[in-house]
């Protein structure tokens, strides 16, 4: 393998679960410690990584400078520490930048995790401590940036996400990229088959028994139990709820008002239909 293997997703689509699974496979099927052993798959927008590889202090940089820093960091990561990284960036040129944060020439392959945007909206609202109305508006915002904070130190740097549908399209419709699409709903409904296909795509030699053990080890109650006992480093400071909430597909039916359902379906409908959500 040369270059970067990306676990790419819009936030709240299940990539942390997927990382926990991969960590468990590497640990022989036991439950990873969520506050240490998920870190093996690092984030390309982690501030510490950007500062180390960029030799800069991100607090001091303008959004334009950060947009120039990101591709540099991705190239250096590919050179110095190729491997698996998680990203929430869209595969698009950010408004302040000249190229995508992860340039195509350093990408070896991409696992793209996608989830029904109606469920994403509910989870997004809880994670960022905002109303579901705000979350739905964010999913439809083509200019949306994540990770910029002017009021506190941030563990992440600016990421350009655009809207939910544009984010999905930027990764799965990108010619030349080797992309494996994983639907959250398939992880829930058919975990063995879906996780096994993931392992095959990543060239992980994992026996069926190990895959089964890892799926069991990262059940939502095991991860949520750890969060209750010791917190979770990746929980957002403004979060209104636990990070590991329910781990179900279709929960929006109980929580999302019909005007919001209509809004999301109107704004994201074409891509939802392509993915079998409509």
């Amino acid at each position, binding site marked *: 393998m040369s270059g970067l293997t990306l676990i790419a997703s819009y936030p709240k689509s299940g990539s942390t679960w997927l990382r926990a699974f991969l960590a468990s496979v590497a640990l022989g099927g036991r439950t990873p410690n969520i506050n240490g052993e998920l870190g093996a798959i690092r984030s390309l927008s982690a501030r510490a990584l950007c500062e180390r*590889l960029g030799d800069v202090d991100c607090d001091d940089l303008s959004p*334009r400078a950060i947009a120039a820093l990101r591709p540099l960091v991705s190239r250096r990561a590919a050179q110095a520490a190729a491997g698996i990284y998680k990203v929430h960036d869209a595969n698009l040129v950010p408004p302040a930048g000249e190229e995508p944060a992860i340039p195509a020439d350093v990408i070896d392959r991409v696992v793209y995790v996608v989830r029904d945007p109606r469920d994403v909206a509910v989870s997004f609202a809880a994670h960022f401590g905002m109303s579901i109305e705000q979350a739905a508006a964010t999913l439809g915002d083509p200019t949306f940036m994540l990770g910029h904070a002017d009021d506190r130190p941030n563990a992440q740097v600016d990421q350009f996400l655009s809207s939910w549908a544009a984010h999905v399209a930027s990764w799965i419709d990108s010619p030349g990229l080797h992309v494996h699409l994983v639907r959250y709903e398939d992880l829930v409904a058919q975990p063995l088959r879906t996780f096994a296909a993931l392992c095959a795509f990543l060239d992980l030699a994992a026996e069926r028994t190990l895959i089964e053990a890892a799926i069991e080890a990262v059940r939502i109650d095991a991860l949520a139990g750890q969060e209750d006992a010791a917190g979770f480093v990746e929980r957002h400071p403004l979060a209104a709820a636990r990070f590991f909430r329910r781990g179900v597909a279709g929960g929006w039916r109980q929580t999302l008002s019909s005007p919001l359902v209509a809004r999301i379906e109107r704004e994201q409908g074409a891509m939802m239909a392509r993915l079998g959500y409509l």
Partner: protein
Amino acid sequence: MASSLALPELAPWPGTPGEPDIVIRTGTVPDRLEGAPDDDPFLQVDPRGACLLRIPDVATYHVASAGEVVVAPGAGASPTEVRLFLLGTVLGFLCHLRGVFPLHASAVSIDGRAVAFCGVSGAGKSTTAAHLVQRGHRLLSDDVCAIDTGQDDPRVFPTFPRLKLWQDSLASISVSEEGMERNRPGQSKFHYRRQDDFSAAPTPLAAIFLLARSEGQAPATITRVTNPLAIIRALDEEVYRARTGVLLGRRGALLAAEAAIAASVPVYRVARPWDFAHIDGWLEQVETLVRE
């Protein structure tokens, strides 16, 4: 140091006037440096050791030699922003060029003995230094701690009496940000000057603390790192502008400095809860350890 750019953060030179070691002036800078690799939008380092640092919207800094810096401010850049990189990144380059070890740390003097606090950005270096200053100790440096390992025992060359602090950190020492310069436009991080609590004299390095966060409500723990190789590894992670130092041919010198520090300075790991409520408790422990 002599500068044509006003540098109000710096303390006046305490000694007799003489030839400056470093001259800073505004002027024209080259577009690029001959022979420098072209793989970095921010920085070029040429084979002679000159550095060209280009910060979008702020300024371009040409560190022509260990004694000369030329600054070309960008149109519309505020003087605060222009000084920010001069007193940060460029200071780090000058340390590397002048053979001084730049540790990514904030430092205070406790009874005339320097204590440095390391950690990645956001680990609490400046906040810790601010609280120790509140407790009556003297500030030596913030963010970049220049350590001279050329003498028998490592010592800290103080930099300047300014701390970069977020609003909540300022509030934790009951200081209002009113009238302070912002680190960047619109950012709630401020430049807090403490001229009266600064010590400008080179100070022997008595201890280094590596700051980390403990999860949940676990109480603070301070553990001495005893294995010299572990100390060297840890210090190597905390070199300020390490990548540039290596480009400047300092790899061996940095390792030698880390080894010199590991041989004579106690190094501790601090894991503490992420709030201000418990800070005095573990700072008392720090004071006790340093005074032992």
